[in-house]
């Protein structure tokens, strides 16, 4: 088993990363404003795993018709998302949820908009077998490919010390997760201003916007900024009312339909992606607690300028629309989160807030996206 290479050593081994296509272990400079990347004890991060993971991430053979890879919805050249309101998988089948960016996903304590998977490893296995995403019936074809392809055989041996017959879907998942743990970055103008001591890093508008973010905008409790790091997420779930009007009048029947689907053993995964109404149930689909109706995970705001459109259904197209939405107090409903209320922002405050949000783009990924 290879020993993990330290970040500095990796920095020495590779030239300064110039584009997202190169894989490297997280560098200290890239992490300005972020804590160290969380790495699980049972999957230590190595460069071999990450390089292998990227290859798997982009392999279109892992789909029913050979056209879909992870990169189909999480496109490296588009800040690891697809710029669509909701993603389209195999055969152009339309889902119900907006593809989150991989960038900094390593910092979430749950994955997916409803947090139904606890780790990057667990998350990576689901889309392969979702009929709307990669469309495979099970993971066997994937395992078949990696066990027989000579390049994969060598890579898996180097990364995990396993012989071909020993390769499982979990090794695939661990490699993909390892790759995703290298797709991290802070080091945005905001980070250089607040944590790097560069008082010129932010425009005056963005500086005012930071004050709104922390004050009148009431953003900072969910989109967390702390004294030495900022994850911009509380890793919790909240109901903003986005899309809630689609189900508000028919809640009892929709909940009953969901409970029935669950009782037949249908995975939550499939149920929520295939039916718009069920998708709006949010976190309730995972916990079964009606108090969680319409709750979705707080997204990180890092690189938010690159990942339009916004919200779990992609219904808000621009940052201006998002700020307006919060200013109005979200969409009123009995389950509305207790942190959401009308804000009374002035036009200036709103514009400043948008300027601030645009300052959250990491230099590492600044050339990706639109």
């Amino acid at each position, binding site marked *: 088993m290879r020993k993990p290479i330290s970040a500095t050593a990796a920095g020495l081994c590779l030239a300064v990363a110039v584009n997202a296509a190169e894989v490297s272990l997280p560098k200290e400079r890239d992490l300005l404003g972020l804590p160290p990347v969380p790495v699980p004890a049972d999957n230590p991060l190595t460069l071999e795993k990450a390089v292998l993971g990227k290859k798997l991430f982009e392999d279109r053979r892992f789909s029913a018709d050979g056209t879909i890879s992870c990169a189909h919805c999480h496109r490296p050249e588009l800040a690891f998302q697809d710029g669509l309101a909701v993603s389209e998988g195999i055969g152009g089948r339309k889902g119900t949820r907006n593809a989150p960016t991989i960038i900094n996903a390593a910092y979430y304590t749950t994955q997916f908009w409803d947090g139904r998977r606890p780790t990057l490893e667990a998350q990576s296995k689901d889309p392969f077998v979702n009929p709307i995403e990669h469309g495979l019936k099970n993971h066997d074809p994937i395992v078949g490919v990696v066990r027989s392809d000579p390049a994969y055989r060598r890579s898996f041996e180097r990364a995990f010390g396993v012989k071909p017959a020993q390769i499982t879907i979990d090794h695939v998942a661990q490699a993909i997760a390892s790759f995703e743990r290298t797709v991290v970055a802070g080091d945005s103008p905001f980070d250089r201003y607040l944590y790097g001591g560069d008082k010129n890093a932010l425009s005056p508008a963005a500086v005012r916007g930071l004050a709104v973010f922390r004050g009148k905008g009431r953003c900072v409790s969910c989109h967390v900024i*702390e004294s030495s790091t900022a994850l911009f997420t509380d890793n919790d779930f909240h109901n903003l009312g986005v899309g809630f009007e689609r189900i508000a009048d028919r809640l009892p029947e929709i909940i009953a339909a969901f409970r029935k689907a669950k009782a037949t053993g249908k995975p939550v995964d499939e149920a929520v992606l295939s039916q718009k109404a069920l998708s709006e149930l949010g976190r309730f689909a995972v916990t079964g607690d009606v108090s969680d109706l319409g709750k979705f995970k707080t997204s990180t705001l890092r690189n938010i300028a690159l990942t339009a459109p916004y919200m779990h259904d992609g219904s808000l197209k621009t940052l201006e629309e998002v700020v307006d939405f919060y200013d109005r107090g979200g969409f009123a409903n009995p389950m509305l989160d207790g942190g959401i209320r009308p804000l009374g922002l002035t036009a200036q405050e709103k514009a400043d807030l948008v300027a601030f949000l645009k300052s959250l783009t990491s230099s590492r990924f600044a050339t990706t996206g639109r």
Partner: protein
Amino acid sequence: MKRISVWLLLAALAVPAPGDEFTEEDLKRWKAEYMKVMERGEKLFHSPLGSNNVSCDQCHPNGANTHPETYPKFQKQLGKVATLREMINWCLQNPLEGKPLALDSDEMIALEAYIHWERRGVPLAPGKH
């Protein structure tokens, strides 16, 4: 020489006791000054200071759960290490849906005086969540 000592004598007679010899009366009087401000703070604390008829004592009867002894500390709602007065302003603007007070205003000092008074005797624990 004689003139200087006359001046010194006059100076000694004109000025009360030297700077730090305060008396029991002084102590009583100064305490009373504080208690007056504290009582004003108590009134403010029990009045609706924002726009929604909510008063501080509704969540903090007798100032309970304000933990003045723990400031400055990292205040989650502000995203930084903050002081009690900043948190008072946060409460005025958020749960009370009102306007902040100037940090050095009489009202702010009165509120702080009351909050501390109700928590008298508790040792300092700065930074404690």
